[in-house]
Structure formats: structure tokens, C-alpha cells
């Protein structure tokens, strides 16, 4: 996968056996991912944009009778803290995920009902089940903390701003 700002070849990624037969046959990440909308973090693909632009068209079901559920509402979280407000967008999530991937074992389906904690997220719970594992990493603070508080000066861009992990949040 990607480390720094380039895709590492399978032979050198530290997990594939460089002497095994697979590294000659498997697709190199760079071959597939360099054609998609670029990102500056994670595996360096803006996956939502790539999907919306039609660069990729991943299947949503195997069985014809599976109901594909989409939901549009945005939920604002972290209404009291010092960091900008978190906007959780259902639309982008349900393009990829089913409701059961989050409800109700991770989050209750009622705005404000879940007790969130950034520490838990960093430990791989709540939003951190996916973010930091498969979806864009937790170093991208302002992609989640994307809505300025009233009276908080300039709105913060929701596009990539890399803040190193562990950075002290603005007070």
C-alpha cells in the first residue's frame, strides 16, 4: 500500500513473500490506484469522489433480492467541544455501506444518542472501526471536524489538510 507519497510495490511492502510466486501475478496497487482521483493520505485515493465520478463502479450486491438502502441525512456531532463540529454524512457512507454496518451496534439511529469520544475513535472504536483501518485515516482531522462553530472565524475546508497524528487541537 501507500507509505509517504507513493505506492510501494508488493515485493517491497513488507507483507508479501518476495520469493513467492504471487508477487509476479498479483496486481500492483500503483497500476490500479494511480488512475483514480488522488488523495494525500491513506492509500491516496479519494474513494467517494472516484465512485461519484464513475471511475469505479463497485457492485452493491451479489444476490438480486438484496435491498440496497441509501440514506441522505447529515448528523452534526461534537456540539460542545473545542474542535470544529463533526459532520457525519449518511449519503457518502451508505453508498458504500449498509445500515447494519453501523446500526445499532456502533451508533444508535437517533441524533445525539451515542456518547462519542475521540479517544475511543483513536483506539479503533466508533468511527475508528473503519477510519484508520480501511477508510481515510484519523490524521485527517478536518475531514470530520469540518463545520466551523458559530463565531469561530473562517470555515475550515473539508478537503485534505494534513495534521500530524497527535497534534494539539486548536483551543
Amino acid at each position: 500500500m501507500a507509505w509517504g507519497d507513493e505506492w510501494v510495490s508488493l515485493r517491497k511492502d513488507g507483507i508479501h513473500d518476495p520469493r513467492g510466486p504471487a508477487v509476479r501475478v498479483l496486481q500492483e496497487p500503483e497500476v490500479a490506484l494511480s488512475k483514480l482521483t488522488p488523495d494525500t493520505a491513506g492509500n491516496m485515493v479519494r474513494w467517494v469522489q472516484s465512485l461519484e465520478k464513475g471511475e469505479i463502479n463497485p457492485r452493491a450486491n451479489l444476490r438480486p433480492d438484496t435491498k440496497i438502502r441509501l440514506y441522505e441525512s447529515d448528523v452534526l456531532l461534537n456540539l460542545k467541544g473545542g474542535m470544529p463540529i463533526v459532520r457525519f454524512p449518511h449519503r457518502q457512507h451508505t453508498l458504500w455501506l449498509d445500515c447494519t454496518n453501523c446500526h445499532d451496534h456502533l451508533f444508535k439511529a437517533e441524533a445525539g444518542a451515542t456518547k462519542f469520544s475521540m479517544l475511543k475513535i483513536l483506539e479503533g472504536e466508533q468511527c475508528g472501526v473503519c477510519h484508520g483501518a480501511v477508510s481515510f485515516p484519523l490524521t485527517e482531522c478536518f475531514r470530520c471536524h469540518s463545520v466551523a462553530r458559530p463565531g469561530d472565524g473562517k470555515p475550515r475546508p473539508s478537503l485534505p489538510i494534513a495534521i500530524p497524528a497527535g497534534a494539539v487541537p486548536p483551543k
Partner: protein
Amino acid sequence: MLNRRAEKEGVRPVIFPHWFHRIRFRCKVCHAELGFKMRVGSNDFKMSDIVEGRFCGACHNGEIAWPPDQCDLCHSGKRGLPTGIVGGHETGGPGRW
């Protein structure tokens, strides 16, 4: 990286590439329809399940994707590595802070 039994049973550990599969399938296919739980190592399945068409075998059946006789394509990991998530999206996570 999946290595619950593979190495003990004499084969290389398995590497499952998310980036490759998500170009072709949305998360909900595996994590809702097929019921893979979202925690590495938590889905306790064996090679026999795959051959019988469950888990990876729901697709790696010679129809949706190539069949399970292509051992080396899945069993492609370095020996000695534990089950866990590896890659560019990794920010730490449980036990790594």
C-alpha cells in the same frame, strides 16, 4: 493479513487486499450480504468453508472470481507475520499507540 491457522498448517499466511476488492465491490457486499465481521481475525473460517462456497469462497468459486485451486494468489504472505491490518490507512489502532 490472515494467519490464524495457515502457517501452523504449513502454508503461507493469506493477504486480503481491501483496495483491490473495493474497486469491484462495495463494503456492504462482504460486510452485510456475506456477513464478514469488521474485525481482523474475528471471522473464524477454514479452508474447507472456502472450498464449500462460504466467505472468500462465495466469490472465489470459478464464477465471480477464480477458484480456490489458485492457492498461491491468496497464500502470498511472508511467514511469521501475525493476523492484523496493514497498509496506508493504518493510523495505529488497538494496541499500537
